[in-house]
């Protein structure tokens, strides 16, 4: 028998916490309407669109080459990959041949971009979890990649480097050697990250078993990239639907075991390793000279029809769907935005969690708002 009246339960006020759009750890302008009861989340509603620029609408009024700079602004941490995804779709549609050297240069910059993006994730994630130093360490390393990109295309963030049928510039003299040096440097640095972060008890306590989901959920929600692979499902488009020259390289697809935040963090680290492997191989076998831009018509006209092709972006499958009427501008351009689709699972992940886990889970989903809102 209880001495306390059954009806007389502890009633705490349900509180509506508005996380964002200006909040340090929402990685941009994401707004989360979080309903909390005490410290437990009862419901979450992501509100997006603050950065919506109507890229898809704008593209309808632009010639194909003019769209490339717009893709820079999607996932601004991985602009090279965005560039490539668009060019790749157009090349597929037009059945264009890309010169060898251009393909190699593309793979090198894309994998370097993936490294830069993953480094950024690691830094930002650790900053979310309260560790400040890794953020500055990764910035120092990322800076070197950015500098290398600056040398090859003259921009630090919005590269606009890829062209339909190749790349804009050949590598300047000595650039490839610099990349090789950087790969060696980062390989050594890699151990530092591993030891500084992966073995940290507090970090493990905050990420192990947090924000778990299984492969089935991930596939049902259309997740891709590391979010899907963290559940142990080796779905990597570089292997599953090889594009460019990825079939020539030897690399592994690291997968997670538990589908938790720790796996997602660790996969980023492992993928950096694999990307460096690819870059190393590409540096070895790149033709020493040759054209970097294939024979393409002056005015790019995609034959009428509809085309979709996706590549393995830094955050998942990045795809472009183009409907063409055979003109120099697309009739409709749709972007398959990995961050946008990955973010859908967030309310499911957060429900029932403690408010303190919000940041750990949101950070590990790894979104870039420029892409989510497009």
């Amino acid at each position, binding site marked *: 028998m209880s001495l306390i009246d059954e009806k007389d339960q502890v009633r705490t006020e349900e509180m509506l916490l508005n996380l964002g759009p200006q909040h340090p750890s929402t990685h941009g302008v994401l707004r989360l309407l979080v309903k909390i009861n005490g410290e437990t989340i009862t419901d979450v509603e992501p509100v*997006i*669109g603050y950065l*919506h620029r*109507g890229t*898809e*609408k704008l593209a*309808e*009024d632009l010639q194909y080459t003019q769209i490339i700079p717009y893709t820079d602004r999607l996932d601004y941490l991985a602009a090279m990959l965005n560039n490539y995804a668009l060019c790749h779709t157009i090349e*597929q*549609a037009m059945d264009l041949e890309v010169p060898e050297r251009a393909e190699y240069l593309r793979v090198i910059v894309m994998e370097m971009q993936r490294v830069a993006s993953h480094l950024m994730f690691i830094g930002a994630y650790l900053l979310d979890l309260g560790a400040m130093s890794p953020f500055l360490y990764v910035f120092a390393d990322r800076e070197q990649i950015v500098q290398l990109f600056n040398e090859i295309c003259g921009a630090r963030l919005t590269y606009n480097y890829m062209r339909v049928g190749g790349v804009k510039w050949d590598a300047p003299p000595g650039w490839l050697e610099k990349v090789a040096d950087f790969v060696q440097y980062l390989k050594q640095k890699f151990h530092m990250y591993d030891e500084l972060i992966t073995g940290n008890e507090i970090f493990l306590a905050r990420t192990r078993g947090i924000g778990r989901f299984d492969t089935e959920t991930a*596939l*049902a*929600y*259309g*997740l891709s990239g590391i979010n899907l692979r963290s559940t142990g*499902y080796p*779905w990597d488009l570089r292997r*599953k*639907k090889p594009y460019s020259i990825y079939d020539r390289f030897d690399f592994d697809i690291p997968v997670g075991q538990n589908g938790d935040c720790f796996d997602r963090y660790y996969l980023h680290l492992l993928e950096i390793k694999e990307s460096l492997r690819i870059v190393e191989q590409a540096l070895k076998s790149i033709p020493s000279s040759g054209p970097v831009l294939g024979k393409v018509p002056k005015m790019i006209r995609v*034959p*009428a*029809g*509809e*085309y*979709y092709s*996706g590549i393995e972006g830094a955050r998942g*499958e990045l*795809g472009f*769907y183009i*409907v063409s*009427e*055979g*003109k120099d*501008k697309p*009739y*409709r351009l*749709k972007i*398959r935005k990995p961050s*946008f*689709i990955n*973010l*859908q699972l967030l309310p499911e992940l957060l429900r029932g969690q403690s408010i303190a886990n919000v940041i750990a889970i949101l950070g590990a989903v790894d979104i870039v708002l420029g892409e989510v*809102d*497009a």
Partner: protein
Amino acid sequence: MSEDREHRTPPKGPEGKEPSVTAAERPKPVSKPAAASGAAVKPAPPKKAPPPPDPRVEAAKAKAEEIRKFIDQQLSTEAVVETGAAHIHPMLLIRKEDWVAVVELLKRSDAYQLNYLECMAGTDYPNYIEVVVYLQSTELGHFICLKTRTDREQAEIPSLCAVHPGANWEEREIYDLLGVTFTGHPDLRRIMLDDDFKGHPLRKDYSAWEA
């Protein structure tokens, strides 16, 4: 909106007829001449002599036919309106009423297991709005394109949320930007634009000045 857009005449394909709305009923914006479809099947460039057909396209068409037979067997014979190829991938145009049933059938069927919604897009054509999904079988490797069409004025398509939860936000985005109502969607609200935004920007007759 550029003048160029207003007066473009897309190539007319044999499949350009809108399935549920006759030509007389369809809306005609004053500045928009009658324009036909977005040419779902890749037609050969009209200027030159037709090059030899791409074997990949032929294979895709054959596979689409095969899938159609499968669907006809399992569901009604009218579910698939037409088949073809979207670039090099099999394409099936599904009747709106059977949209969810077909997607679900293909997801559950052992032969195809199209369990992964890879891309979902809506396109505004002059006579109709088309919603297209690219489905992937992560186990078997099939990759096909399914489409359905709806009237522009009363754009309404059954929601795929129950089959593919990942379609949720994509459908909201299409609703937001193209004005297609997805019946049975759990939470159909605008996602990118303000709740009180007027119009649907991705429609070809949208004008920022009129709104």
